[in-house]
């Protein structure tokens, strides 16, 4: 396990790109680097180029046989990716919206995740499933869910969630060339985010958190879209004299416990935030690990911020009522910093 890698997130070198462009670049370079790479999913091919244009231009460049449109068949998309991976390819399946992964869970949970183990190491499933959370844009209860905790719960799967364009490229490339099944969770709300993206082959090892913002007073653990809100909260709090260290997990499995514990050991206070449902969410695991390892050193109980335990309504008022925000995260940090032990 590695310590936090502060330099991995947004290196100064590279070209400023959106996350959409960074993902497209990672896929393009992977298709170019290895003839075993295959993209499979709904509406990927040109002229559509994907519902969010992440795969735009790729079928034109690499052919419709390698950038392959499918019927609306999530179980078969992911199942065929499992089979193609077992047969030696490196398929990248797209499940358009994360809620739809429910339809493909059998293939992920029972076959992709367990084939290496059940075969005694004979089989390998080097596949990636890209999927996107459509929360934050009024998509309603069946098109807005953030479901990575389901997947982090399954031994055999890796679960990766980028927050920046550079990470999107480096982590997706690592997933594609990983020899185990990876679920790569994108956020539609981040596709337009811009940042420097390293040119040429760029991989970020899975399982290394990044310090998205250094600080000494309190550790704020987040991932994916929530990192953006965590950084906004940290900026606000800096104006109040609270220095927040934002730890971006980047992957849930593998989990960089050392980075989290190293930060909390210094700050002695921690908040964990995600857009997934707070109850039984991944934040509970992070809080549990912190409590087990650092109980005697904490100055405040670990707080968890996440979506309320309710469906996500379509009306903006309903979505806002359920979802965390920069201000609700900041409020949790203030409570944590204001907490005094033994008082």
């Amino acid at each position: 396990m590695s310590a936090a890698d502060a330099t991995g997130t947004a290196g100064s070198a590279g070209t400023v790109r959106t996350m959409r462009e960074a993902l497209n670049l990672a896929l393009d370079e992977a298709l170019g680097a290895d003839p075993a790479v295959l993209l499979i999913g709904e509406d990927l091919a040109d002229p559509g180029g994907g519902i969010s244009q992440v795969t735009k231009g790729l079928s034109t460049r690499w052919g419709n046989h390698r950038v392959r449109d499918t019927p609306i068949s999530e179980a078969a998309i992911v199942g065929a990716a499992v089979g193609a991976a077992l047969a030696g390819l490196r398929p990248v399946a797209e499940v358009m919206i994360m809620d739809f992964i429910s339809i493909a869970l059998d293939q992920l949970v029972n076959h992709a995740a367990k084939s290496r183990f059940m075969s005694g190491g004979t089989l390998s499933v080097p596949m990636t499933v890209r999927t996107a959370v459509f929360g934050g844009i009024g998509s309603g209860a069946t098109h807005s869910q953030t479901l990575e905790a389901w997947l982090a719960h399954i031994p055999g799967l890796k679960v990766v969630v980028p927050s920046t364009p550079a990470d999107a490229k480096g982590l997706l490339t690592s997933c594609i060339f990983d020899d185990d099944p990876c679920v790569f969770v994108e956020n539609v709300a981040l596709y337009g985010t811009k940042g420097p993206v390293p040119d040429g082959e760029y991989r970020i090892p899975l399982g290394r958190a990044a310090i998205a913002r250094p600080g000494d007073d309190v550790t704020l653990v987040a991932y994916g879209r929530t990192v953006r809100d965590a950084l906004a909260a940290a900026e606000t709090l800096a104006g109040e004299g609270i220095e927040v260290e934002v730890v971006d997990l980047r992957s849930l499995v593998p989990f960089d416990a050392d980075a989290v514990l190293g930060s909390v050991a210094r700050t002695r206070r921690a908040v964990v935030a995600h857009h997934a449902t707070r109850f039984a969410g991944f934040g509970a695991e992070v809080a549990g690990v912190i409590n087990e390892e650092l109980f005697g050193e904490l100055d405040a109980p670990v707080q968890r911020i996440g979506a309320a335990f309710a469906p996500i309504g379509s009306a903006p008022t309903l979505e806002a009522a359920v979802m965390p925000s920069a201000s609700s995260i900041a409020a949790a940090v203030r409570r944590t910093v204001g907490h005094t032990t033994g008082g």
Partner: protein
Amino acid sequence: MFERMTLIRACDDRIRRGLSSGEFAFTYWPATGQEAIAAAMGAVLRTDDQLVTTYRGLHDQLAKGVPVGPLVAEVLTRGTGVNAGKGGSMHIAHPPSGLVLSTGIVGSGLPIAAGVALAAQLRGGDQVTVASFGDGATGTGSFHEAVNLAGLWKLPLVLLCQNNRYAEMTPTFAAQPVAHVAERASAYGIPGTTVDGNDPDAVHRAVAAAVDRAREGGGPTLVECTTFRLWGHYFGDPMRYMAEGELESARTADPVGRYRATLLAEHVFDEAAAAAVEEQAHEEVEVAFVAALEAAFPDGGEAFTDVYLDPTGVPL
């Protein structure tokens, strides 16, 4: 094919004997009565052709060429098993024989087989993949999604349905609005055919035609083989759901005995030669069981290996 059928039956008999006597215990889904289908398929396929089968797969696995010793050891979850005792009877995989894997979830093997066939199609060459499944699988979305993909992409795939008349405890006629599984094929623009699955020669002809078609780029074929599951869904199944006399009637059509009688009548071999085949099969199976029963279960520590290739950062 008679040799393969005999070996399968000998192995199946030995498992059921051991389970009955308490010599060993595991959950077993017997394919007794379905040997002709597997033997014919095995005779048609090349070693490099690929097979995805199911938890009721002993016959398919032996027919595809998985070696008896390590297969029996796996079924008995010994460390010497073909999958180090981690798969068990439901989850046999043996790539050197072209057995990709055996799935424990009904219907799930079909999309996987489509993916294996897609990989073969993209690589070029003439490798064929067979998806072997029961009538119960045809009720799953996985079946329909996979056959649709296979038809759409003209995958080099043979869809081998072993219609053994029951999906778990429900008869086929109570689970589908069509008379024959093969009728499903027309919805996906592919040929479908129904053959007597207890007649190895008939199955051989149908599977050979489907394999040839797939090999030549013609796309998938659905081959429905009608048969009967003689020992129920699982070993110990009291089969209360069967009609009076149904099982007895099915036993008279037991493909192993029937094929033996046919070959004797046609003077393909005589009684002594048939008995020699059976004797050799029993010996091979007995050697496999003696070795497997002497072998240890995998060490408990093996529960934590082969979960990931690189387990760094994983809370194992």
